[in-house]
């Protein structure tokens, strides 16, 4: 009986996974790129580095902190007008990706900044002394030297996004979180709730394992 009910929900499950996958995919791809650029800017505008600029450094740092200290649900609501303008709707996984992306950009930017700070200043100085341009330093020194840290940052960001995407689901984004609320909570179907939780755990585990492996393989220190 219970099994049959779960089976009858199969199309709903599939749709929910697809929506979650969309939200994760869109926001992760966008936030890794934008987050990297922002994190790099934050790092390189610091004292003694090649794009030293106190004003830029402080302003971007402050903006990031403002966004990061806003609880995600509130950010979601605050960004509804922007979402409407960008996607033409506030419902569905693509619309939900807007606020997810914004939250993940600033999150990943800080992680990028932290892993770039781990790069030996002496090595950056050596590259400068040999006449490397800022872009050569980024490509030949910062990226390879910080790569394991950057990958770990992507892993952490992706896993946070799984959690955030479930939250975004509640306010119309769809996905696994939405499914859990609609069936598990409103209709008291604990079994549905359990299945979604198990699926979320599996997604997180897979992300973690892949991320760890890439980071470990890249670590030459």
């Amino acid at each position, binding site marked *: 009986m219970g099994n049959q009910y779960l089976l009858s929900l199969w199309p709903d499950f599939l749709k929910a996974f697809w929506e979650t996958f969309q939200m994760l995919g869109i926001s992760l791809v966008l936030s890794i790129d934008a987050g990297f650029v922002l994190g790099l800017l934050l790092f390189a505008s610091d004292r003694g580095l090649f794009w030293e600029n106190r004003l830029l450094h402080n302003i971007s740092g402050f903006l990031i902190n403002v966004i990061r200290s806003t609880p995600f649900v509130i950010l979601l609501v605050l960004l509804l007008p922007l979402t409407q303008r960008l996607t033409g709707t506030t419902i569905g996984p693509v619309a939900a990706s807007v606020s997810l992306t914004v939250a993940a950009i600033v999150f990943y930017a800080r992680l990028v900044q932290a892993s770039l700070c781990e790069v030996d200043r002496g*090595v950056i100085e*050596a*590259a400068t002394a*040999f006449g*490397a341009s800022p872009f*050569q330093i980024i490509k*030949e020194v910062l990226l390879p*030297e910080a790569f394991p840290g950057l990958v770990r940052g992507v892993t952490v960001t992706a896993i946070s996004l799984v959690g955030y995407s479930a939250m975004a689901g509640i306010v119309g984004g769809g996905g696994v979180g939405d499914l859990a609320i609609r069936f598990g909570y409103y209709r008291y179907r604990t079994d549905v709730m359990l299945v979604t939780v198990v699926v979320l755990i599996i997604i997180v585990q897979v992300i973690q394992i892949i991320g760890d492996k890439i980071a470990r393989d890249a670590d*030459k*220190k």
Partner: protein
Amino acid sequence: MVTIDNVSVEFHGTQRLLRAVNGVSLSIREGDVFGIVGTSGAGKSTLLRTINLLQKPTFGRVVIDSVDITCYSGIDLRRVRQKIGMIFQQFNLIHTKTVFDNVAFPMRIAGKPQTEIAKRVLYLLELVGLLDKIYAYPSKLSGGQKQRVGIARALANDPRILLCDEPASALDLETTNAILDLLKGIHRKLGITMLLISHEMSVIKKVCTRVAVMSEGVVVEEGNVYNIFASPQHSLTQSLVAHSLDLELPERVLGSAKGALVKAVYKGIKAEEPVLSDAIREFGVGINVLHGKIEYINDQPLGVLILNITGNEQGVGQTIEYLRTRTASVEVIHG
């Protein structure tokens, strides 16, 4: 070749302005191995870093081959830097690149063709004796090997100037000597102009031809290494030289010696014999050699003797005066 003209560097500290380099003027000639020696915090690294503008001088000019580079930036500055090699105390190799790629790095930066890079990397690694580690990562190398890679990398773009900031200070004694010998050999072979920082006179003595002594941002003494060793003028130089010559006498000898104890420094090997016997005959004193050695600085011998002079007061005094006229310097330790 390199002229540092009245250069000052100021740092804005949390409480007050710090003048790490204060009005230093030096001129380094083509082919010199120029040493900069001084205590920690004297401003040696800061001064050295002004030469490739890793540190912009607050005042003054840096002139390389009659070109004032102080205001250079962007691509012009990068071109200048590509012709100035630099090696570091902490090696500063790129951890995620192999030995080959580390040495190739400056050439890739300069846009050299791939085939030329490969050939030159092999040549450089042979020069520093590290061909067998060509595909190793830095983490698998010893400190001495890392510095050899650092030296090969610094020479990659065939620079005419090599800056060395305490190249051997992170290494043990034996490895230090091997690295210094390597640098000396490279200087002999390539005739490259070198600037080398150290806080030890013994390192300067081993490789440098000229030296500047720094203290609190100022050059207090400068000259030919042999002459600085033979007759140091400033008290800091004197203590650095004395430390390096290492002619310490045991307390017991110092305490029990009657008469005068003097340290005489003379140039050349054979000079002392007739001087001492002349003095003994002339002034009727006894002279006892307590300690002595001959140092070779730039292949010139420099002798140091610690003498115990006994006899009547007048004779001892006359002997000391006589020694002063016949040797490079005489220091009365006591008596």
